[in-house]
């Protein structure tokens, strides 16, 4: 089975985010990028499938921030091929445009299964995976916790619903799956293995095909939420703070 995993780089929240002078985008100058967490799980899921049933795993990423690092790590973890899509505009694309570009690439390589994270911190509403399925005209299941491939031509996915329900769904291949988590957490790859991959493996680069994709969305303003009312911070020793809390509660008539 040929599996393609789409990896997206998202801003690393360890650094403080700044808004660019344009007022509609993040200031990318100091931004560091990190592999989106559920994409990390999608990769793990792909590698688990490969280990169990054989096949080939190709990791694919749009060239942004430390995408190369993520791709070498994917190779070190066991991916067979890594592809970097270059020629991405400075300000990036919206999810729909990105999905259109990736869709065009995947249409050519026509993998049996496309895995990607179901959401990312810059895609909390989970556009990417669904849009990709739509563009490719393939079946789509999102928020999965495991993907198995016991028979040919289809996969068996598990997803959970609120209210303590879980479903097992059979999906005909080819298909796009939006992974929430792999059955086991992404494995650790020792640094030596990544360094080794950097020396011995290559990432193939591909110019991102130009596809016309109307975004339909325009960011008007990006801003830090203004707190409605300032919270009152207490400080002092634990005893002092406890006393203050008691006073506040008393003043509001909550305790007597």
């Amino acid at each position: 089975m040929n599996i393609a995993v789409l990896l997206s780089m998202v801003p690393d929240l360890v650094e403080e985010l700044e808004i660019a002078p344009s007022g509609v985008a993040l200031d990318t100058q100091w931004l560091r990028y990190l592999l989106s967490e559920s994409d990390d799980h999608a990769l793990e899921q792909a590698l688990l499938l490969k280990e169990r049933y054989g096949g080939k795993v190709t990791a694919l990423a749009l060239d942004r921030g430390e995408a190369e690092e993520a791709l070498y790590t994917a190779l070190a973890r066991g991916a067979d091929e890594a592809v970097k899509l270059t020629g991405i505009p400075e300000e990036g694309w919206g999810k729909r445009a990105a999905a259109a570009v990736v869709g065009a690439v995947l249409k050519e390589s026509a993998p049996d299964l496309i895995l990607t994270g179901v959401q990312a911190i810059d895609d909390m509403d989970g556009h990417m995976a669904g849009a990709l399925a739509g563009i490719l005209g393939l079946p789509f299941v999102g928020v999965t916790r495991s993907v198995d491939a016991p028979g040919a031509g289809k996969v068996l996915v598990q997803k959970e619903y609120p209210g303590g329900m879980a479903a097992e769904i059979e999906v005909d291949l080819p298909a796009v799956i939006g992974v929430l988590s792999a059955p086991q957490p992404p494995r650790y790859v020792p640094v030596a293995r990544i360094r080794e991959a950097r020396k011995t493996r290559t990432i193939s680069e591909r110019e991102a095909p130009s596809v016309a994709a109307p975004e339909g969305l325009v960011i008007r303003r990006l801003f830090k939420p203004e707190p409605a009312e300032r919270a009152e911070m207490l400080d002092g020793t634990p005893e002092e703070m406890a006393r203050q809390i008691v006073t506040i509660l008393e003043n509001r008539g909550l305790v007597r």
Partner: protein
Amino acid sequence: MSPSGILLLWIVSLVALGLFAFRVRYLLGLLRLGRGENRLGGVGRRLAAVAWEVLGQRRLLREPAGVLHFGIFWGFVVYASAFIFSLFKGLLPFLPYPMPEEIGPVALALEVFGVVVLAGIGGAAFRRYLLRPPRLEQSRDAGVILLLIGSLMVTSLLSSGFHVVATGHASFLWNPVGTGLASLMVGGGLAPSAASSLQLTMWWLHMVLVLGFLAYLPYSKHLHLLASSFSVFLTDLSPRGRLRTADADGGGPDPLNARNFTWRELLNPFACAECGRCDRVCPAQTSGAALSPQKMVHHIKEHLLEAGPYLLRGTPRNGHYPELVGGVVSADELWACTTCYACMERCPVMNEHIPLIVRMRRYLVTRGEVDARLQDALTATSRYGNSFGQSPKTRARWTQGLEVPVKDVRREQAQYLWFVGDYASFDPAAREATRAAARVLHRAGVSFGILYDGEQTSGNDIRRVGEEGLFEMLAEKNIATMQKCRFDEIITTDPHAYNTLKNEYPEFGGTWPVVHYTELFDRLIDAERLRPARRLGLRATYHDPCYLGRYNGIYEAPRRVLRALGADLVEMPRNRLNAYCCGAGGGRIWMEEAAGVKERPAERRVREAAVLNGVGTLVVTCPKEITMFRDAVKTTGHEEGLMIKDLAELVEEATTPEVSGHA
């Protein structure tokens, strides 16, 4: 002796030696499965080690029971030498010397040691079979040796008695036991002629027993009699705090096997006397974790003997070689080690447990088998250069609002480059001590600077969890950064950083002198650049950090500083090289609580300090310990009675003129 007797002796000797040599050759073959490692330089120091540890039994004599072993050991030496002379005289009767027991002083020595050894054996048997101390494994081998040595002593003492009866040469001076026994025998009606043949029987019995033992030795745990002297001679002469590099530790499909270890590492289990000393001092073992260093070493031997034949032939058993990790050694036990060095400090045969453990941890890391918290720490470290997962830009946040300037040594020259380390930079409690240290240095007029966001974690503990590649990356980055700075010496408050900077960075090109802040404070007080303005009227005890004490031998500097401050220093029962680890080292601080732990090492240690008469302060000199011990005083309910203080905080207090206490 008759010619046929001589022939028989030749045959028995050759058979015994043949069996012995056959086995030893096989065992050497097993050792040769390991990778190469040079342990032959520094012969003088090696011989000195043998003199101290083998002949002088130094480590054994650190505890009272060591006297028993000392007696047995030297008795054994005397007997073995006498035996060799005796055997050669028997094999080659024309040799121009008498039988050893015919020489007065030798006979006396043999008799005295015979009695001493019998008493020692009696004591050992009593302890082993009647008292049954928990850490001694009951084994057939142990029984066999007690019986054997006992029989040797009895036969040789009886022989001496028969000799006196047969020859009539009674001498209370040279044969006190023999003469005593002889008078009993004569009293029992033994004729000189019968005595003479009985003496010969004893002699034969003696020879056959010893030769039998020689053949049996390399097949039993008593191999340590043979291997331990080599183990001591082949000890590691490089600094204690330097781990060997990983070389080509194989990941891949091949399970960890003998080929991943060096031959010297494989020698450890053969040298082990199964004495249990390592277990008794091991913080993991004594707190209930899965690790027993003694069993681990033993299990490596079991594995080697099981897998060895297949490895030697190069043909796997049913498709693969028996597995070591996950087989006889569990991942849990490997992760429980704090790399505190207590076992290695104590082991009388100078076994090297930590390199074995790290070797196996490296294998687990290669396979990605690390627990979730450790994985987070490793991932964070490789990404941000610190295990806290904080932005590198916040590393020097502890300097904000500090009353004294802290140079950026990347821009400005300074005498000392202060390598701050992760805990001292990011941990809130440790940060206070770091700030105190900065103020003290400033007060003493020391020129120092830090690397700000250019510093990455030193990697000491990263290396010890087995992430060798990450360690190398960190060392290379730090060295490259420091090479661009102008300074004379490195100073650090973190013993872990101290250890790797001093002992391991030189192998990567970073060869700067390194001092621990306790050493520098000591010097500054000595030079009167730091003047205690008032005496701290406190009764305190001091905890030796493993990486400062056992690893680097710095025991006295912090104590001198404490005394100079006027503190009344009371030692815990386990101090200096016997200090009990706080449990944070070797990457344990990043991991889940080890399974099975009943009482954490830090809690045991705090209890040890808390019962000292009138002691209200536990002084630490390691940023990790502040957190470890502050937690432990809470969980043990000693929060009121025992304060945890960093030495820098006390120095600051004592050198501050006004009484307010805090600067």
